[in-house]
């Protein structure tokens, strides 16, 4: 028995509304692939992806499946498996809008919401074409005068609040606290999101707050709106201490995604199988 509402993967997917701004974790932060497949099955449309700070197969699949209207990211890539083909195709053929960004800016915009301030300053960026293509960014004169640089120019980034965040993690405890380990960017994402749903490999019969080490690795339940059990929920991506990325499947995907037709066939097959179990 757990002291929180256990959801199904399907129920989490159905919480994602068309047009919503979704937080997308990087390949190392627990990619929620089982929910992603359910989102694709449900033909969600016009999603806006906010990547912290990049996406791999998850973003490429969502784009290839026609679910995405806009993406804000520092990169979309399959890493060692090459460029992200459906993303490339979508950009080269003007199918989706992109807000090209840089990793620390994606962090800072969420940290602004975390602190409920309307903006964050960030150094760098000035002189890049990233800046010239972002109407929501501006440059101001540093309002704090220092001895060395009286006339410093600095970039101002707006706070961004996510409609929903979904990620996959190792464990939840009986009170709905989730173990995120060193992946603290998940805490930033959660703090900046209106709704947070998590899939986990297992639910353990303890309270992480009873042990200082475990508490240190925990995202508290107060930020979490629903949890689902989903074994291998990040597959073919990896999950720290559980499984590594599936090279063979990534190669298979990278090849299939090169063309829309072969991608469609790959996805049809993927959806028809039951790779993820709820128990």
């Amino acid at each position, binding site marked *: 028995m757990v002291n929180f509402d256990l959801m199904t993967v399907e129920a989490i997917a159905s919480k994602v509304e068309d047009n919503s701004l979704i937080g997308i974790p990087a390949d190392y932060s627990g990619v929620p692939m089982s929910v992603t497949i359910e989102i694709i099955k449900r033909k969600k449309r016009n999603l806006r992806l906010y990547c912290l700070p990049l996406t791999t197969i998850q973003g490429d699949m969502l784009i290839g499946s026609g679910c995405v209207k806009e993406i804000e990211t520092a990169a979309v890539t399959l890493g060692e498996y090459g460029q992200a083909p459906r993303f490339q195709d979508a*950009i*080269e053929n003007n199918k989706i809008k992109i807000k090209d960004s840089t990793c620390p800016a994606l962090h800072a915009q969420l940290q602004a919401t975390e602190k409920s301030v309307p903006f964050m300053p960030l150094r760098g960026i000035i002189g890049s074409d990233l800046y010239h293509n972002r109407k929501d960014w501006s440059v101001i004169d540093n309002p704090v005068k220092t001895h060395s640089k009286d006339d410093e120019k600095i970039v101002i980034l707006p706070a961004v609040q996510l409609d929903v965040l979904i990620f996959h993690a190792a464990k939840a405890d009986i009170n709905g606290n989730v173990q995120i380990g060193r992946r603290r960017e998940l805490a930033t994402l959660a703090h900046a999101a209106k709704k947070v749903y998590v899939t986990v490999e297992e639910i353990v019969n303890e309270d992480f707050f009873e042990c200082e080490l475990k508490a240190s690795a925990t995202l508290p339940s107060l930020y979490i709106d629903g949890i689902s059990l989903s074994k291998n929920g990040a597959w073919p991506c990896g999950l720290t201490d559980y499984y590594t990325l599936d090279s063979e499947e990534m190669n298979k995907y990278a090849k299939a995604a090169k063309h829309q037709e072969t991608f469609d066939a790959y996805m049809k097959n993927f959806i028809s199988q039951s790779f993820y179990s709820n128990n």
Partner: protein
Amino acid sequence: MTEVLQPEILISEISNLLRDDRHVAIGAASPIPGSAALLAEEERKNSDLKLKVTILHSQKFNNFTDGSRELFDASAQGRIDTFFLGGVQIDGEANINLVGTGRYPKLDKRFSGSFGSALMYFVVPKIILFREEHTPRTLVKKVDFISAPGISPPNVYRPGGPKYLITNRALFSFNKKEKNFKIEKINPEFTLDEVIKSTGFEFKTNKNLKYFSMPSQKRIDILRNLIAPKVLNFYPQFAKKLWFN
């Protein structure tokens, strides 16, 4: 003597550039720089100036505990001495383009994106630009899109920036004041003239031009016996192809 592989020469050359560093960080998809950093760390293990290597995509070689923003925060704090950046295109003023070719936003060919370059290029003192392919297609007169600029005006905070550019044909140093590259070393398989022809921008030549140096047998042994198995953990595709095929 063992046959030395081309990537091993690059690894060895890059490793030499890390001589005075205390902390080198390695970002996404950088197996050659990552191998070079681990090699330098191993070689200085028993010296006074130890090298710390943070490989972001590795569980074991990641020294951070504050999430993925810590690389950028620590770099902005001045705690990272060297970082590597690549580029779809790199131009003669060291502007780098990681986004794609053609007219943005509707590009002819889209690449992955700018990653952290638009901050890292400004704050890390020694940025080494690394791009294996040395052609007029990659080393261009002017990049199509500036992910991060090579130089900045004085009213922009910029303690860091480009120091070197290394390709499979040559090693260049960058002169911030003159805003240009100078060739320092050349791959002995190519002539200077061939390098000039394969470079889309003009660069300064060097009276003391040296050749890429052959790694010693000892270094090759360290690389293959100690470093290769580590690299296999976080760049499996690369390591398998080079060392475990």
